[in-house]
């Protein structure tokens, strides 16, 4: 009995350790949640609902992708949502109240995000205050800063057509399908090229089913997603933008020397230091990326809600949803393990649960409790699968 448990733990651990398998747990969770609400709420699986589910998850997803980067180095950013709030407020004040041209306002919001988070990163890296404390202080300070920027009104409307278009414009159906086809071809080509190169160098090859599974899995997911979204209004532009940014960050974290440094610092800081990786600058860079993503989240949020209010960002559940999304996606709170793609899937899990409970008429209280339970389950799975992985030796 104990043996069976150990073996299944080990399998779970091994499954999460493999490059392909790290998506599996969160994908299965997503399918289970969709299946459950599909049965209990007839409208849940409708194209219209899915369309809004994707839009709702975009803000959380953007922030979760950023937070994943600091989780990778074993730090945390509790101020990310407040930073997004400051950026959104700055954007709204500049455009709506001051009449500043939109591109300049966007640049100002991005610079603000980078400066605020970068400053936190410097304090964490150089003064060596734990990130938990620095960003908790940041959370409070940035909440105040957001209130100051918003002024006495507490909310500013966002009517600028360009900003609004970010989350209201959709791709024509054909372009949606073209992107799916392009994605599949590009992935297949990349997988095939790697395979051929590895074979010619005499290196071990992944099993064929794993490579094929990668392509088929991606194709299926993309095709189903686009088919559903096209069934309503088409693929929202903001979803494509978010996926593009995530792809870029995904590439940086897995394929560059900087990305390797992130994983090394998170996995074993002492080891990273001894091989000459700059811990301080890796930290500062990671926090700067969170700031950038927080600014994006602020802009997307301002667009989506057509207004900027304290509760939609700094004061609401955005932060915990974003951290929850990253962790549910399988990124470890202990550092060194995770992926920005998983953060997107985690955001969909959080969004789906909230959406399904809303459809069922659940109270805000129930939503909080159930979200908490799911988060706890995800973190427990993380802890258990770590143990499982170390038992396979």
């Amino acid at each position, binding site marked *: 009995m104990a043996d069976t448990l150990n073996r299944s733990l080990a399998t779970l651990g091994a499954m999460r*350790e493999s490059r392909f398998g790290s998506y599996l747990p969160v994908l299965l969770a997503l399918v289970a949640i969709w299946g459950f609400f599909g049965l209990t709420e007839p409208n849940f699986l409708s194209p219209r609902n899915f369309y809004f589910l994707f839009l709702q998850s975009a803000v959380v997803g953007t922030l979760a992708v950023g937070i994943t980067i600091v989780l990778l180095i074993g730090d945390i950013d509790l101020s990310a949502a407040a930073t997004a709030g400051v950026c959104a407020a700055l954007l709204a004040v500049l455009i709506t109240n001051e009449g500043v041209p939109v591109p300049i306002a966007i640049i100002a919001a991005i610079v603000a995000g980078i400066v605020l988070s970068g400053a936190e990163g410097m304090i964490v890296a150089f003064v060596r205050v734990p990130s938990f404390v620095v960003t908790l202080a940041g959370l409070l300070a940035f909440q105040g800063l957001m209130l100051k920027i918003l002024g006495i009104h507490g909310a500013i409307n966002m009517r600028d057509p360009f900003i609004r278009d970010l989350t209201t414009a959709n791709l024509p159906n054909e372009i949606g399908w073209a992107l799916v086809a392009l994605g599949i071809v590009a992935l297949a080509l990349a997988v095939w090229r790697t395979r051929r190169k590895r074979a010619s160098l005499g290196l071990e090859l992944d099993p064929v089913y794993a490579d094929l599974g990668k392509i088929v899995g991606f194709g299926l997911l993309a095709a189903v997603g686009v088919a559903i979204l096209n069934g309503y209004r088409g693929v929202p532009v903001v979803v494509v933008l978010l996926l593009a940014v995530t792809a870029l960050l995904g590439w940086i974290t897995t394929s560059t020397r900087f990305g390797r440094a992130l994983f090394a610092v998170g996995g074993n800081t002492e080891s*990273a230091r001894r091989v000459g990786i700059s811990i301080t600058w890796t930290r500062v860079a990671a926090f700067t990326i969170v700031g950038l993503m927080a600014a994006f989240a602020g802009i997307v949020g301002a667009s989506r809600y057509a207004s900027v209010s304290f509760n939609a960002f700094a004061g609401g559940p955005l932060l915990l949803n974003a951290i929850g999304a990253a962790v549910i996606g399988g990124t470890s709170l202990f550092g060194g393990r995770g992926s920005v793609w998983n953060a997107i899937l985690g955001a969909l899990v959080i969004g789906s649960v909230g959406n399904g409970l809303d459809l069922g008429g659940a109270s805000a209280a129930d939503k909080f409790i159930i979200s908490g339970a799911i988060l706890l389950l995800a973190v427990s799975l993380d802890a258990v699968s770590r143990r499982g992985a170390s038992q396979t030796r």
Partner: protein
Amino acid sequence: MTAEQQHPAGTSSPPGEPHLKVVGVVKHFGGVEALAGVDFELRRGEVMGLVGDNGAGKSTLMKILAGAHVADAGHFYIDETEVTISSPHEASRLGIQIVYQDLALCENLDVTANLFLGKEPTVPGWTRFLPERLRPIDTLSMELEALAAVQRLDVRTLKSVRAKVGVLSGGQRQAVAIARAVGTESSILLLDEPTAALGVAQTAQVLNAVRRLRDNGHAIVYISHNLGDVFEITDRITVLRQGTNVGVFETKQTNNDEIVAAITSGGDPGNGNHG
């Protein structure tokens, strides 16, 4: 008694001048004299055991050689050229690499990533316009070199260099740490208690890897409390006691009792000097 004397002729140890030689190394920590003028030498193609009781100065000497500590006094020679070792970077530039007892591997990364950590080769070509740290890593050439490195050390049980270090056995991890140290242009390898936490089979595996390196002409310092291992792997044994060198013994011409006596009491004057 000074056992630090001429090398006895007619032994099986490799001939030649010492590759690394240190003379009169002194190191104080506050009021405590950790090293009180230690002489030490090491030849190419030789495994030199470094033994002594706790506090005898083994680790201090190692760390000075690796550049982690700076000696208060003393002269360092590599191939008879005097050098200074004032930082880990400088030690590594001189070809000195150390494998600490804690190994310092990233368990969340695979064997290849650990071997190249901090010095990953990047893909040549179009990526030149990117900042150095954002260039894509050349994973395939890394993996080829990692395979070669693992094969050089003869780690047969390691099935894949794409395995995460977290799932490896203790012996395999030690081998990976050794491979990382010798992967860079190194001629001197310092091993701190490499078999302390290992079982019999894994110890054999690590000793085998050390032997392969010696046969490739590396000069290896082997710190251990386990005299069994020391007698099995070393060519000579240096004994430290209270911060001084109390003797250098040819492994084949000494025995357990003599070494234990040297460790505990500085050696019995009757047979300590075997030269």
